[in-house]
């Protein structure tokens, strides 16, 4: 029976990998961020000054926190009607049909396209369109980034929403139909109320995706280290400032970037935890 013991031990040891990895990630981020927090204290979070000039170095994360939150929320707002109608299409109107399967695979394809390809496409194909509308001069900024971000997170919101909408018991819907309700009335008074928390969770998880997205946003947001002044103004996000400045950073600046990474880690972990919590209660 030694084979049994060896196998059990091997399985247990491999399960430690993820434990050590998670602990290591948190410790390394904390350790790397410590100098920045020691130097600036709470001001690191509340200040929006980002000045890497030697001698008068000052780093604050607020501009990037604002940029991340604004682009992600805007992306979510754009994403909601798209994901909502697509999931109704897949799981309610055309549930189980070939059309529904085709649409579902197309939406899955959207999830497979690499972030940098989205960024490049947004830069060369979408940006000129936005410039042509006259709303923006350069086409860079919060809105452009959010629009591409919305397309990127649609598949995540859709697949989960569709799954949950298709789980609504047929008896409930049939009861409403038997009372003479139209399909729209069934959707709004039966399907949505009973799938509500699942649908909300799917959007929260999509938001979690948007918060950490890097490349596409970096290529489109304009990379200005200020709190965005409007929908079409440039800004910067936590992920994209790390991507842009980490390579040439050292000392205090490196620590400030790691501290931004730590904050981003905490925000995404919190949002994802919230989404998972709602799903668990739903199930």
């Amino acid at each position: 029976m030694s084979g049994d013991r060896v196998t059990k031990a091997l399985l247990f040891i491999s399960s430690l990998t993820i434990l050590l990895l998670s602990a290591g990630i948190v410790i390394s981020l904390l350790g790397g961020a410590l100098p920045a927090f020691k130097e600036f204290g709470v001001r690191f979070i509340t200040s929006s000054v980002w000045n890497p000039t030697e001698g008068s170095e000052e780093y604050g994360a607020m501009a990037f926190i604002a940029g991340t939150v604004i682009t992600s929320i805007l992306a979510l707002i754009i994403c909601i009607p798209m994901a909502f109608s697509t999931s109704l299409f897949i799981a309610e109107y055309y549930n189980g049909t070939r059309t529904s399967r085709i649409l579902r695979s197309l939406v899955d394809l959207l999830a497979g396209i690499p972030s940098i390809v989205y960024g490049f496409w947004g830069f060369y194909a979408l940006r000129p369109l936005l410039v042509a509308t006259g709303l923006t001069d350069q086409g860079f900024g919060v809105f452009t980034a959010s629009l591409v971000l919305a397309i990127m997170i649609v598949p995540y919101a859709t697949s989960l929403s569709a799954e949950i909408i298709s789980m609504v018991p047929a008896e409930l819907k049939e009861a409403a139909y038997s009372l003479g309700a139209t399909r729209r009335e069934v959707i709004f008074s039966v399907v949505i109320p009973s799938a509500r928390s699942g649908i909300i969770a799917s959007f929260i998880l999509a938001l979690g995706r948007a918060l950490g997205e890097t490349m596409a946003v970096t290529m489109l947001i304009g990379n200005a280290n200020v709190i965005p002044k409007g929908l079409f103004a440039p800004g910067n996000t936590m992920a994209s400032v790390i991507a842009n400045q980490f390579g040439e950073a050292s000392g205090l600046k490196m620590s400030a970037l790691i501290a931004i990474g730590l904050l981003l880690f905490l925000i995404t972990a919190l949002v994802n935890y919230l989404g998972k919590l709602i799903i668990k209660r739903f199930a």
Partner: protein
Amino acid sequence: MTEINTALTDNIGRRNRTNVRFRYLVIAGAVITVIPIFLIVGSLAIKGFRQINLAFFTQPAPDTFQAMMAASTGDIIPGGIANGLTGSLLMVFLASLFAIPPGLMTGIYIYENSSQKYARFIRSLAEILQGVPSIILGIIAYIWIVKNITKGYSALAGSVSLAIMMLPLIIRSTEETMRMIPVSIREAAFALGTPYYKMIYKILIPVSFSGLATGVLLALSRILGETAPLMLTALGSPAISFDITKPVSAVPLLIWDFYNDPNMVSLVWSASLFLMVFVLSMNLLARSVASKHKYI
């Protein structure tokens, strides 16, 4: 139900009209959602096709001067993405080596002990790790490998960041696959006196093989297109290199380099087209394996 009751007293003609209108709204929303995929694939195919030739796969990236000369005469840009291709394959191979064995075993461990608190805790950790933005994994690999082990940007650091991304994906897909295996198969094995380890190696793994392969392929298609963590770890290199302690390039890193060089624009279209087709075919392969998924 009150809404239905009040609605019933309304004019049936109006209710039918809003019903039809809402249906069109849903269809329109769904169509708008899938339009971008056609736009993206279409524009990449049209603009990227010209540069795809044999040299594109066999030669390293050109320097900006060569590209400028070609662009000025209207020729296609010489060179290709060979240095990125070899770098990507090297790092993805190493990442698989680091992530697949512990990922599979941890997945099996969670499945086998799913009633225990510790296993459930490990599963939540994997869920959290899966949600960590990839750029943060780049920072981690930078601190661990670039600063302390290879003392400089390296393929090893790139692979470690990709491996950390891959690990939770493999763990979750393994556990979910295992959960789909009928309990009766396990029970039948135990009833015949099969030892535990033989049950795992000879029954659980072979029976769920296609499901496990799907999970691995999907994880690979995720990490193949990753750019952000590699910017902080592998950095990029103009030459083909297989030294894991030195910087290497990768296809997404090349796209980033080309994107930042105005002379290389037409090469970005081709490189993006190639990366997208590569990742999507991996994705489709995974799904076709999954659809053949059968449990005895």
